[in-house]
């Protein structure tokens, strides 16, 4: 099977997002061929080069998203009119001038976001979704005439946008758009629609693959949508972090008009990708809820947990007795969202009840903010816990230690987890907690705050407390520290759960079966050509096109067991028939 892997700012670039996952996927599915189509995010990223590629990557095509060559094609009169129509439609949808609310609000009432069944003028009456129409209209224009980059930068585009924003029914925020806002939106749309001008959708590009796999939502899914539109290639969208949510969070303090229009665009694009994709996968329930919220069909959604390499933790996981029974471990990147202060306060509480306990904080600070926070935590630890010694002649030591991986004490991550009996997580904000999974793979019981996907990852194999509640955290830790049998039981359960759900193998296996499922459900019908390039008749057996329900009871089976009307015909065949074979 040949798979078109679509990435944006990711694999195969050295600094790409999710490159590790993609690399494992491509290497793990060595029996399939991969055509990688990558959009790069910056010149810096392009200069850094690629990671080594396995041999089953057949070809790599890249395109920059950070710059666009204007192909200097000046559109003719007819093409210009087409552009104005399509872009006007797009702008009208974004500004809400069509009367419909943005995609995301309609889910509750209408099921799918494209269900704005509002008759629009001209050729698109029969189509329900104006956004998709406009998008594919622009794509077709770019494919046939070119010059889309120039057209999107032109005055026509800005003027069309203004007209849409001033139209009756436009959103309040959009109505207040100023000239500079319009320019900003036009520039952003031009950037976002750059994949439309690529030459990837021909028969030797994405037209030749059996399946497109977009490694993230948003811009990476756009080539997949177009390939589906032009050549009917089925699309699979995998999201570990929801792009739409990232867009909301990274949107800087732009004026409301810009944010409103762009949010509408990204919302619509996500909805379109979800509705056209055969299967949408998410990394955790949280992402899945966002996808459902944006209009993804529940039947299409699959949760595929990210895979972790279990081998480094195998040794530690199989020898639970090496843990120091009085040590708590915290592992992660030091930053304010991890709320180490709360952990230190909880630890003070624990020390009152279990005076022998020690806390190891393992991790490097993230950025300058993280460094400052680490310094703050060190000061707090020194204030809360004075150095103490075993006797009058021994050197004192602080019960809280701050360490980093790679020193002589802690050569690897597994050693960090191995040294403690309980792993603690005190974050107030968390996505998918990787450190918890690692602790589970090591067979360590965990105490964590109820944030992000923590509960989903832990299942019943650890204790969960509310965030920003040091007392509850302390209670949970003390309970576990006092009960070694429970610790061992929960630790073993945690390791079993992690090996079941969070290994690389299950991740690859899940994607493999999804590929097979998609290809069996939505095969592409290609005309087979002979050497001269003419269509070869009967190259595909006619049975391949017969729409039969394989699951339906076949006549031969019914003869033996089927009662009632289903058996009537074969039974009658034994009696004299009016014009039978006899």
């Amino acid at each position: 099977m040949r798979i078109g892997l679509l990435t944006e700012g990711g694999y195969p670039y050295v600094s790409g997002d999710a490159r590790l996952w993609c690399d494992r996927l491509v290497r793990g599915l060595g029996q399939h061929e991969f055509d990688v189509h990558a959009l790069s995010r910056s010149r810096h990223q392009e200069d850094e080069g690629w990671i080594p590629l396995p041999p089953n990557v057949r070809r790599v095509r890249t395109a920059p998203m950070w710059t666009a060559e204007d192909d200097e094609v000046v559109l003719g009169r007819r093409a210009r009119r087409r552009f104005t129509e399509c872009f006007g439609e797009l702008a009208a949808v974004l500004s809400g001038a069509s009367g419909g609310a943005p995609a995301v609000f309609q889910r509750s009432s209408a099921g799918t976001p494209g269900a704005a069944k509002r008759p629009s003028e001209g050729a698109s009456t029969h189509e329900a979704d104006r956004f998709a129409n406009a998008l594919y209209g622009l794509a077709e224009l770019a494919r046939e005439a070119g010059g889309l980059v120039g057209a999107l930068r032109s005055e026509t585009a800005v003027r069309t946008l203004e007209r849409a924003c001033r139209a009756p029914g436009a959103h309040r925020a959009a109505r207040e758009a100023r000239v500079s806002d319009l320019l900003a939106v036009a520039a952003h749309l031009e950037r976002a629609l750059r994949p439309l001008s690529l030459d990837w959708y021909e028969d030797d590009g994405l037209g030749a693959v059996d399946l497109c796999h977009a490694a993230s939502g948003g811009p990476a899914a756009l080539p997949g949508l177009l390939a589906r539109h032009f050549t009917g290639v089925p699309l699979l969208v995998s999201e570990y972090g929801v792009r739409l949510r990232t867009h909301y969070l990274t949107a800087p303090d732009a004026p409301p008009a810009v944010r409103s229009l762009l949010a509408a665009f990204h919302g619509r694009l996500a909805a379109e990708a979800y509705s056209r994709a055969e299967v949408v996968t998410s990394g955790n329930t949280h992402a899945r809820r966002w996808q459902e919220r944006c209009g993804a069909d529940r039947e299409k959604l699959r949760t595929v947990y990210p895979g972790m390499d279990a081998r480094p933790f195998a040794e530690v996981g199989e020898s639970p007795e090496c843990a120091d029974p009085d040590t708590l471990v915290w592992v992660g990147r030091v930053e304010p969202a991890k709320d180490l202060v709360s952990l230190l306060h909880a630890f003070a509480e624990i020390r009152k009840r279990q005076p022998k306990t020690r806390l190891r904080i393992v991790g490097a600070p993230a950025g300058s903010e993280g460094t400052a926070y680490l310094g703050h935590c060190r000061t707090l630890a020194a204030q809360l816990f004075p150095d103490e010694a075993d006797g009058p002649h021994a050197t004192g030591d602080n019960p809280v230690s701050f360490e980093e991986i790679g020193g002589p004490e802690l050569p690897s991550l597994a050693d960090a987890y191995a040294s403690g009996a309980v792993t603690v997580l005190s974050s107030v904000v968390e996505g998918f907690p990787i450190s918890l999974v690692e602790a589970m793979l090591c067979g360590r019981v965990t105490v964590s705050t109820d944030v992000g996907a923590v509960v989903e990852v832990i299942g019943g194999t650890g204790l969960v407390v509310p965030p920003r509640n040091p007392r509850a955290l302390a209670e949970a830790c003390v309970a576990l520290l006092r009960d070694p049998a429970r610790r061992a039981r929960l630790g073993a359960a945690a390791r079993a759960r992690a090996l079941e759900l969070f290994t690389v193998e299950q991740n690859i296996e899940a994607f493999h079966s999804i590929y097979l499922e998609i290809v069996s459900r939505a095969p592409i019908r290609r005309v087979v050509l002979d050497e001269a390039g003419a269509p070869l008749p009967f190259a595909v057996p006619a049975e391949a096109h017969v729409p039969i329900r394989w699951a339906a009871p076949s006549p031969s089976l019914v003869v033996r067991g089927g009662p009632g009307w289903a058996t009537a015909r074969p039974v009658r065949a034994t009696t004299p028939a009016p014009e039978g074979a006899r």
Partner: protein
Amino acid sequence: MHRHQELCERAVDPLEIAAGLEAHGITDRTAARFRHRDVFSLAEEMYARVSRDGDAPTPEAPAAPRARTDWALLTLLPGTLCTAAVAAVHLTHGRSRLFAAAAGTLAVALAFRAALHRGPLSRPDRTVPGRSTTRTSWLVAYALLGNGLLDGAIAGGPDSLPTGTADGPWPLTTTPVLALALACAPAAWTAHLFTARARRKLAASRGLEDFAAAVRPLLFGTFVLFLGALAALLTLCAAVLDEPAAYAETLTLGALLFLARLLTTHGFAYAPAVVLTATATLQAAALAAVFTSRLPGCGFLATPVETLVTTWGAGSVPALACGTAALALLVHATRKLTRASAHAPPEPSR
């Protein structure tokens, strides 16, 4: 709720609030305490409840491109070098004068290149090679040599090469060239003024029509300002060099070059190239017509040029050509430079 007041007020849809709440660590369990099924429905209620009738604050004007000393000094360079070259040509004789002229031309050309490479007169995209250098050089060379050649040709000459003085058989007219070289600085400054003002108007105006209406007087003002500066410089040069100040031809040529550069810097390179080519062709055609008329049977070709020259002098040919071209470009500029898309802030290069 009050903790997220600001978030709710600036949000454009409930999903933005939901994303913000989740970033603050609010989960479905937290939402359940507020009797909501999940964060999304909590966000929807917050979005519905918050009052958004406060007017949006007027956005701050974007930081105008600061006038930097490096390009401001660079724009003075061509004028200075040209003055030096003219002085050298005046002070030297014979072969050394030839060297001085050649060295001066080269230096001025390099200085122009440097001055146009950065600052407000630079092109936004350096990747596309400039297409109008040849035509500009031709126009300037004609301003230097053309009138003398045309006069000489009509009188039956030219009989010798130019000697580099204003009173020889093929006189050089250095005043326009010197004035133009000196005008490089006011051109850059006025262009900078235009860009900065246009950016401010961009932030302030509500609609594209408003913006066009605001920029049009700005464009004319800039243009007139530049012409005034050029005229003043021309008067000064003529007084110093003791030559007649050819106002008509110099002002039209200066206007043409200024408008062409202004259009090019805003991304409209096509029209200026066409207009400059047409002007250069017209001037060359005038010269060629005079020379061709010496062939037997072609005497009628030179009649229009000769009429012009005898009526208004040799300067009328370039003045007419450049004037028409400058007018065409001015009309073009009032259409193109009043568009908002011409003033879009440059894309951050990453």
